[in-house]
Every structure is written in C-alpha cells, then in structure tokens.
C-alpha cells in the first residue's frame, strides 16, 4: 500500500475531513466577526460568549420548554441576536465616534460578565445535549467512519456562509449596507435608516455566532468556557483572512481548520499554536491579511 508523507491515504483523508468539520465552526464564527467589523468597525470580543449563549439557550429551550433541535436552530439565533440588538442600542452605539479600542474593551468586558454569570449558574463541567434522532448514526466512507451529525455541520455551515456572502456582496440590500459604512450621511440622504440597518447588522452577526453555538451543542460539551477557548483562534483566523473581508473569513476558516487537522497528525503538540504561527507569518508578509485591502 502506498503512503503519503508516511501516512496511509485513508488516514489522511479522514484527517482532512475532520479538519473541514472544525473549519466549519471557524468559518461561521469568523464570518460573524468579519461582518460586524467590516460594517460597524467594532471588534466584537463578546463573540465567543454569544456563541456559548447560543449553545446554552438551545439547552434551556430543550430542558425547560421541550423545544427540539430543529426549532432551536431557528429560534436561538433570533433570541440571542435580539440580545445583541439590545446591547448595540444601549451600549455599542455610543462608541462609534471613538477609537476601535473602546469597542474592544466594552465587548471584552461584556464577554467576561456573561461567562461569569453562566459559570455561576451552571458550573464548568458542562451539560449534555443529545444529537437529534434524525442525525444519529454514521456513514462508513471506507476511509473513515463519518458521524451523520458532523456531515450535517459541514453542509449547514457552507450553506449559511455562502448565503451570507451572497447577501452582502451580490444583493441590493448588501450594496446599501456597504454604502452605508462608506458614507452614512449620503446613504441616509437617500431615505435609508442607517442606524437601524447597523443595529440589525450587529444582531445578525451575533445571530451567526448563536447558530454556530447550536450546531456545536451536541458535539462539544455545553459549558461556559466553550467560547473563550475558541475565540482567540477565531480572531487569528479573521486577521489571517483580512479584517472585515467576508470571503477571506470563510475561506481561511475552512482552510485553517484543515491545516490544523493535518498538524494534529504530523506534530500533535503543535496543533494549538499552528494557527498563530501562520498568523505571524501572514502579518509579516501581507499585513492586511490574505484577502484584505490595504487602506
């Protein structure tokens, strides 16, 4: 049997696929961050906490109200997104005229508070959330055993990512949004309510994080630290892709998932840092990120 880089091809395909699955989460989360940064110029550090809230709200809907996974997938982004709208209206909207740093500090503080509250209420060991009955079981692909749920995660993530990219880059609504960030006064003069559009954009970005949270609930344990563990990596993904670049966030999200997956095979000890090494290299060579535009 032939081998690629000292590893049987079967094992390699398996690892590539696993990388793609993790990349789905990176892509969904970095997409939300990129949308918020690209259109609002806010570095949303509470993104990880909002992802965690997504998983918890799904768990609460199931435990307290008996609402199943599929409804949660629809309702949770709306509920958590609405909480984002409230945060934007009450707090973030007061910071637009200030330096980026203030938005970062505010959202970072919010993340700590939200995580603290959940930790206090639910502890850190995590809560079980079952995989929906329709997606239990697995497919034997020959080179690996793919759980149906993981396959679903990739599909759902690709569809949502593409939909978002399409809406922002290819529709009239997206054009208005992009115009509003370039020149809010002019767009406002055309009769478009710019502040409301910005608020809804933040809500949408937060909703994306919550959606990722619901997807993650059945496979990772639902615990208050789940977002904090992930958010730093996701920020690195956004920086590599180019701050604010929608396509960059999606492509690097999936790409880095695969790179990380391969590192886990060739040098497992390095898998926690490989993304940051790439980030450092990209910043040295192309400071605006792979898909970013230099201002």
């Amino acid at each position, binding site marked *: 049997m032939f081998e690629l880089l000292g590893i*049987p091809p*079967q*094992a390699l395909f*398996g*690892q590539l696929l*696993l*990388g793609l*699955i*993790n990349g789905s989460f990176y892509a969904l989360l970095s997409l939300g961050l990129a949308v918020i940064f690209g259109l609002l110029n806010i570095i949303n550090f509470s993104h990880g906490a909002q992802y965690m809230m997504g998983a918890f709200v799904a768990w609460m809907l199931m435990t307290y109200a008996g609402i199943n996974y599929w409804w949660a997938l629809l309702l949770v982004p709306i509920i958590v997104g609405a909480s984002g709208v409230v945060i934007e209206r009450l707090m973030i909207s007061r910071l637009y005229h200030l330096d980026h740093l203030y938005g970062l500090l505010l959202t970072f503080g919010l993340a700590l508070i939200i995580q603290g509250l959940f*930790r206090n209420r639910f*502890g*850190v*060991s*995590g*809560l*079980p959330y079952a*995989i929906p009955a329709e997606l239990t079981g*697995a497919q034997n692909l020959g080179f*690996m*055993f793919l*759980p149906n*749920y*993981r396959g679903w995660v990739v599909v759902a993530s690709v569809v949502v990512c593409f939909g978002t990219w399409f809406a922002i880059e290819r529709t009239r609504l997206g054009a208005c949004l992009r115009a509003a960030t370039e020149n809010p006064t002019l767009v406002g003069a055309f009769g478009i309510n710019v502040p409301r559009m910005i608020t809804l954009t933040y809500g949408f970005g937060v909703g994306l994080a919550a959606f990722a949270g619901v997807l993650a609930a059945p*496979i*990772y*344990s639902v*615990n208050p*630290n*789940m977002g904090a*563990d*992930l958010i730093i990596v996701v920020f690195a993904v956004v920086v590599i892709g180019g701050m604010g670049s929608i396509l960059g966030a999606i492509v690097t999200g999936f790409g880095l998932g695969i790179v990380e*997956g391969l590192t*886990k*095979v060739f040098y*497992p*000890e390095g*898998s*926690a840092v490989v993304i940051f090494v790439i980030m450092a290299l990209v910043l040295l060579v192309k400071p605006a990120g792979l898909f970013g535009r230099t201002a």
Partner: protein
Amino acid sequence: MKLKTLALAALATTLMAGSAMAQTAIKIGVLNDRSGTYADLSGEGSVVAARMAVEDFGAADKGIDVEIVSADHQNKPDVASNIARQWYDQDGVDVIVDVPTSSAALAVNEINREKGKIFLNSGAASTDLTGTACAPGTIHWTYDTYALANGTGKAMVDAGYKDWFFLTADYAFGHSLEENTTKVVTESGGTVVGSVRHPFPGTDFSSFLLQAQSSGADVIGLANAGGDTVNSIKQASEFGITQSGQALAGLLIFITDVHALGLETAQGLVLTEAFYWDLNDDTRAWSERFSAEMGGSKPTMVHAGVYSSVLHYLNAVEATGGKDTEALMAWMKENPSEDPVMGTGTVRADGRHMHDMYLFQVKTPAESTGPWDYYKLLATIPAEEAFRPLEEGGCPLVE
C-alpha cells in the same frame, strides 16, 4: 503548703497553656481552579469541605481560631506560585490545601519547601510530589497517577485488553499518568502500541481518536482529566469507536465527569477513586451535608481529601499546641488519620497518605436508581498495593 504550691503551679501552667492555645490562629489557604476545567471537581467544593472539617473539629471550642481563604490559580503554575508567595509573605497563610493541576502543584511545592510551610495536596496527581520532588512539609493526600494506573490499568489488562494506545494531555500530569500506566500495562503482560499528546485544554479530540482507532489497539487509555476526558469519551462514542469493539480506559475520571457525560455514554467505564459518596453510612451522611451547601452536587474524592487532610492537620495543631512545621509534620506522620469520610490512613515518610483505593464500574441507566447513583464497587485495593512502594519513588527524605 508544698502541695498547695504545686497545685497552684499546675493550675497556672494549665491556664497558661490554655491561653497559649487561645492565641493559636490558623489561616488555611485553599488554592485551586475556580473557573476552568477542574472547577467542579475542586473549586468552591474544596472550600466547603475545608469549612466542614473546621466545624467538625470544633475549632471554636478548642480555642483555635481558624480562617479560610481561597484563590483561583487558573491551572497555571506561574499564577499559583504568585498566589502562594503572596499568601506566605504578606497574608500570613499557614497551610495551603488542594491545588489540582500537577504543574501548578509542583510549583507550589517548591515555594513551600523554600518557606518551610505545610502543603496538603488533594487535587493533583503527579507522583513526583512524593518522588524526586518530595518536600519535608508536603503531604500528598488523595490519589496519584501510580494508584490510578495500578487500579484501572491492571484491571483492564486482566480483563483481556492487552494492546494500549494513549491519548495524553500534554503537561506534567498527562506525562506522569502515561508513564505509570505504561509500566503497569507492560508488567501485567500487555503492550503499548502508540500514543498521541493533545494540547491542554482541548475541545476537539476526533483527530486523535481516529489515530488511536487506526492503531488497532484493544483499548484507548485516556491520560487526561476533567473536560478533556468528558469530550474524549463523548466523541469516541460519536465516531463509533466504542461500538466497533475498542474499549476506553478513563485513567482519571471524577464523579462530576460521569454526571456531565450522563450514564448513557459513560456506562461500563472502569475507574479508580479514593472515595465515593455511597460507600457507607458515614460517607452518605457527610455527602448529604456537603450537597446541601453545594446545590445538590455530590462531593468528589478531591473534596473528601481536603476534608480529611484539614482535619488531620487541625488535630496535629491541637496535639502539638503550636504551628511549628517540623513538630506538626512529625505528629502527622506518627499518628494515623481517622475520619468518617476517608476512614483510617497513615502518612508515610515521603509524604504519601496511605489509604485504600476503590475500583468502580459506572452503572448502566437501568441499574441506576437516580441522579448521582453512578458506581458499583468492583474491588477494594488495599493501601499497600494501591500506592507506589516507598523505595521506588526516589524521594531524598527516605534514607
């Protein structure tokens, strides 16, 4: 006349001794993980356990003034060192207890040695604490990687799981546990076919699990703990690893982990613990009190160890009438520990607390009668068999 003087003198001495005792103020520092992956198995529960020990000892009636402080070391050795230093240098802490996360515990152990204080470790697992790194003021109370490896590792090999693959958390504890288990496995006639080290803490273990699967081993040894173990077990079941005949050996599983996994996923796991709430009437009564203060959760063996070690320490303070480290350590090593939670035990010259360990199996959902009814007892491992023999540790205190 002479008799009267003598009686008076005796009375005066007693009074003086009494007042000296009344001046004894003890400050206990509970240092552990209060927010991260080990917060449920140690955390606030350890503070509650320490407080229960102070109450049961009756410190107030004995004229010993005990204060308990706590801090979060975030599982980081540097943070743990800083807190330990501040506690000893500025805050007047006399004894540090708990300290899970081996790397953090080893760091605190060194500061403790330097300051000549007492360190009662319950939460950490590394055998180095009573081996090459053993210190005159350190007692390793509850469990260690040798005991875990010896209990679970041996039981699995005896049950026919000969070929092992390790999934190891990449820090002091994981390495130590892997090393100890490898030794037990090979000595019992098994072999180790491979291992992979994962970053700590991790979230996705599927990649490592697939490597373990393709190794063709009979059993995957999980040399990790807390959330890492929970996620590894969940994902092994998701990727059909357990269903395809490969077994999992959780080398360090706490009851809080089983609670988080749910019996559906955790059933059948074999594990080694120093304590289970449902062992006898005493442990049940104590655990009931603990639960009442902890919102219903049952104590882990780390909590039990904190209670037991603090009680033994306070007995030593009462007996020696002071806070002199050397005198206290001598007393604690000479006298057996005795409490309703961990039963009878002794402290060995290298600082190892010796007590029985238990081999449990996680019940199936059908066998369990309700929340926290999780274990059935497979075997009691006598202290002398459970822990590493004194002469094998390489502790410089043992001549």
